[in-house]
């Protein structure tokens, strides 16, 4: 995990050093848009005199949405689950336009505030012999999954986040964050409290959930010059 993060940091530093050598600060822009992080915005600096060749962005966003309630059987017991995705973070990104057109490659690092949570409740009364136990007495499973705090990012797209010729530009981007691990927290209440011991099973099941996709669309406004 440490190796992986270190590798991404080197890649970023290399990118910045490249831009620092070749370019001078030309434009400053702000952008608003929607992406995996939700509604967000960025502050961008373009580094090119003639054509946009690279952009450094500080971007952030936040988003919360609930998935529709799901019903299924868990160990032959009918349950209902409600999941909520909180995504968000703040990061530093570097866009490079290798062909001096709108196509760009993007790399960066996000400080993650992602939190994927779910609450699972029994749908019906559960009978222990002749004694009916209500779903409240049985308890609920509350699960939270958080990817690692720092998420390296790689992507590609079109459009300049720091427009030079026009005052406004549009940008589209597709990429993926990489999580070095997922932290699972179970908070089971009531009689199913012993299930908290099964965090490691879920952690193991989602160990391959490392890549977090990202779609980004933004409108960018040049501030100056």
């Amino acid at each position, binding site marked *: 995990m440490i190796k992986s993060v270190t590798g991404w940091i080197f890649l970023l530093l290399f990118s910045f050093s490249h831009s620092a050598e070749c370019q001078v600060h030309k434009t400053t822009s702000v952008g608003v848009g929607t992406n995996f992080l939700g509604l967000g915005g960025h502050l961008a600096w373009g580094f090119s005199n003639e054509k946009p060749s690279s952009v450094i962005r500080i971007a952030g966003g936040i988003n919360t949405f609930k998935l529709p309630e799901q019903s299924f059987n868990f160990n032959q017991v009918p349950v209902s689950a409600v999941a909520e995705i909180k995504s968000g973070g703040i990061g530093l990104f570097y866009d490079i336009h290798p062909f001096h057109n709108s*196509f760009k490659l993007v790399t960066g690092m996000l400080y993650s505030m992602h939190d994927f949570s779910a609450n699972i409740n029994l749908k019906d009364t559960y009978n*222990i012999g002749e*004694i009916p136990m209500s779903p409240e007495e*049985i308890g609920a499973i509350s699960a939270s999954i958080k990817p690692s705090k720092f998420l390296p990012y790689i992507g590609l797209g079109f459009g300049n986040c720091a427009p030079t010729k026009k005052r406004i530009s549009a940008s589209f981007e597709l990429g993926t964050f990489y999580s070095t691990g997922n932290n699972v927290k179970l908070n089971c209440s009531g009689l199913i409290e*012993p*299930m908290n011991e099964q965090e490691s*099973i879920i952690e193991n099941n989602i160990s391959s*959930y490392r890549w977090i996709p990202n779609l980004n669309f933004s409108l960018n406004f040049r501030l100056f010059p």
Partner: protein
Amino acid sequence: MKYKFLIPKSLCISLAIILTLFVGCKKNPLDGVILTLNTDISPVVYSIQVFDANPDNTITESENFSVKITGKDAASIFTLDGTKNFKFTKGFLSIMVKPGVTPSASKPLQFSVVVRYRNYLKTTIPVFLTKPQKGMVKVPIINTVNPPKGVTVTNTVVSTNTSGALDNDVKIQTPISAEKKETAEINIPKNTQFFDASGKPITGNINVQLVHFDNRNSQSLASFPGGFTANNVTDAANSSLGNGLFQTAGFVALEMGTDNQEVESFSQPVQVKIGVNSELKDPSSNQPVQAGNKIPSWSFNSETAEWKQIGDASVSFDATTNTYSADFFTSRRSWYNFDYFFRSCTIETQVQLNYTGEENYCKFFIEFENSRFDYYSYTQPTFTDLYDGKIITLPWGLPANESIRIRFVNPYTDEEIGVTPYFSSCYGLYTYDVNYQTNNTEFEFSIYGKCPVNDRIFRPSGWIYYQAQGSNEWNILGFMSNGRISTRALEAGKTYSVGTSNAGQFYSTEVTMEADVESAEVEWVLPEDYSGCK
């Protein structure tokens, strides 16, 4: 043109790679996650262990015992899997009170466990609770073929005529021996008819079993049916006497009936007579009993666990045999108790421990300074946990204003942990400083039951027992909550079986205590028809 073609192709490839990375070959996050239930759902979990009062006998068929729960709160009593299928296994029965029913001083919980089996005297185990607790009680039961010392049994058959009446006087008497100096007898006059609970006459041959417990022998005293404390006692005028303690002059159990009907009453009074130990002291004079003295006599209602005074037995002296006896007349068949009754304190007496040492278990005995109550030491000790701040509530029914002390012993080795000074039985909260260390290291068991069909897991709560290798006796290890129990009872290098009684099954496993191992996980496969697996 070249770029125009190249860029969409790159985009498509990248998109495909990203989507593959994200959704490809993923497991369901809940795969292998199992519904696991803590079964500690009741404020009261009670374990009843029956054992043969004669130490030469061993109970081997407790699974076949008939068990009935009676009393005002019987409806609230369930097995640990929430059913009413009460069944002993290896002499143990574990029961719980329905969740939501919490006993208190103002709303005590009262029920009785009635146990029957061929060749054993019907046994009623009264339970009276004023607070939530994880309790256990060891109950001696009487083998009528081979009874303990101090207990004698006579079995006979009486025949009635076609109208259900006796044609002659009938005298039934228990035998006397060198070890059993007193006898009991029932004298039924001719023309007596026998009635069942509905008042219907019983005709034909009636089986009679007369059992007498003397007040001399420790085995007899230790197996005194129902114990000496009582919580539901009324006098002859039907006024409640509250809780209290009996000092016995003798006990008679009379069982009568056919295969289908039990005799509950007689058409006319029958005489119940017992020999009286000449060393018995009348508490009012503190002198040995004399002819003309009265000994209160009581009958027992096994449905309500109520002791009711049915009169006073008159003491008489037989100069030819130089023996004392006491008798009374009754029209109800019952257990008969010739006992002095001592009312208990009106407040609860508790002992708070200022304890230094590792958390452990202990059992404690109550000892009286007054030798009148020496017999009480034969009753079964109470098993409890031991930690700093522990408050032990003494059993209800201790006689008021008597000087008592508590003796604590290690339940596994019988080593003495400490003895309190004498204090009043009505002291309230008594504080006692005690220190105890054992050489054994702490060992933790994590125990669970698994359903064979759907893999559900139940973390049991209940009493755990252990058996040393080579021994036939199961002893208490402690109370397991949520499938976990820590103990210092087991010695390194030795092999034990640990087990528990749950829903009519006894689950056990063998564990060898390795010196460098501090815990063990135990899985017991539950039967398919276990209620929680359905």
